[in-house]
């Protein structure tokens, strides 16, 4: 490596268009957005229920996990990202939900 310009060895356009997955189109984003608004209202409706049952807890947390998956995959555009990062982000909300469900399980039983 003896070129006079001693910058880094491999230089290539950091993120040429072809190399990366593009963001979802407006239409897809809008559909996902409306879907998430609906899901949120649904989970809020659950709050009105008089008593808190285990499957209600799991339903609400499932909705949250679905919404989170949409955001991570489409809005954060991790669909095209290396698998390590996608798995890391996708399992975050389910993992926290599991802990929360566990604390409810222990309390209710």
């Amino acid at each position, binding site marked *: 490596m003896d070129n006079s310009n001693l910058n880094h060895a491999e230089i290539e356009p950091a993120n040429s268009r072809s190399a990366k997955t593009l963001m979802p189109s407006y239409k897809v984003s809008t559909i996902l957005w409306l879907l998430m608004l609906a899901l949120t209202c649904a989970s809020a409706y659950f709050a009105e229920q008089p008593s808190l049952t285990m499957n209600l807890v799991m339903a609400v947390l499932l909705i949250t996990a679905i919404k989170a998956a949409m955001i991570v995959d489409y809005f954060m*555009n991790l669909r095209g990202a290396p698998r390590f990062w996608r798995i890391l982000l996708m399992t975050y909300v389910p993992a926290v939900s599991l802990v929360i469900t566990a604390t409810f399980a222990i309390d209710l039983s």
Partner: protein
Amino acid sequence: MNQTLSSSTPTSLSPESTRLDTEAQSSIGNSMDTETDSITASETSVSKGSRSGRLPGDLAMWIFILAELTAFALLFSIYAVNRALYPDIFAEGQAGLDITSGLANTLALLSSSYFVARAVTSVEHGNNRKGFYELLAAIGMGAVYLVIKILEYKHSIELGYDITTNVFYQYYYLLTAFHFLHVILGMIILAFVAIKTRKKAYTPDSIMGLESGACYWHMVDLLWLILFPLVYVLH
């Protein structure tokens, strides 16, 4: 050499020298001299091939995002454990919360995330002006969140609930206020990125700074997605 102009605050503070830094007495190979570092303001980023897909945004931002997610995961878990330890205090406290403002906040943050996603799509198609206005809309929705949250705080403080009232309000204030500050930090980042979008700093080929700001904002929204059911819904 590609010019990655991610967010560049005045770099007077530390112009990066990009020469291979030997600083040993002798020179390397046949390069003329190792000593006079040419201070090139350009910022080169090393990106090894992109066969296995590309992480949107900057790895530095992702390390910051992971740290924040870990901190909040710990905070959520400790909140959940304490809810199980003191069910009655938490139930009574949660009953006092206004579900509609919680819902409105969630819708506001979801919409602002939506606008940020649209903005990134716009800039990817080279339409910086449209992207700029979408970012402004996102910041606007963020402001809506702030207003609703401040009203909520004012309401509960007027009722005399303070961070030291009881264990529920300690956790409620700590978690939501800490997230509140992250929304403000996220809005500052979005504003910063919006200005650069307006000044055409981002092109379809060099969009990393915008993606980093967008990913941070989506993380803040993600955190609220967990906070909303945890604090408002499940009681």
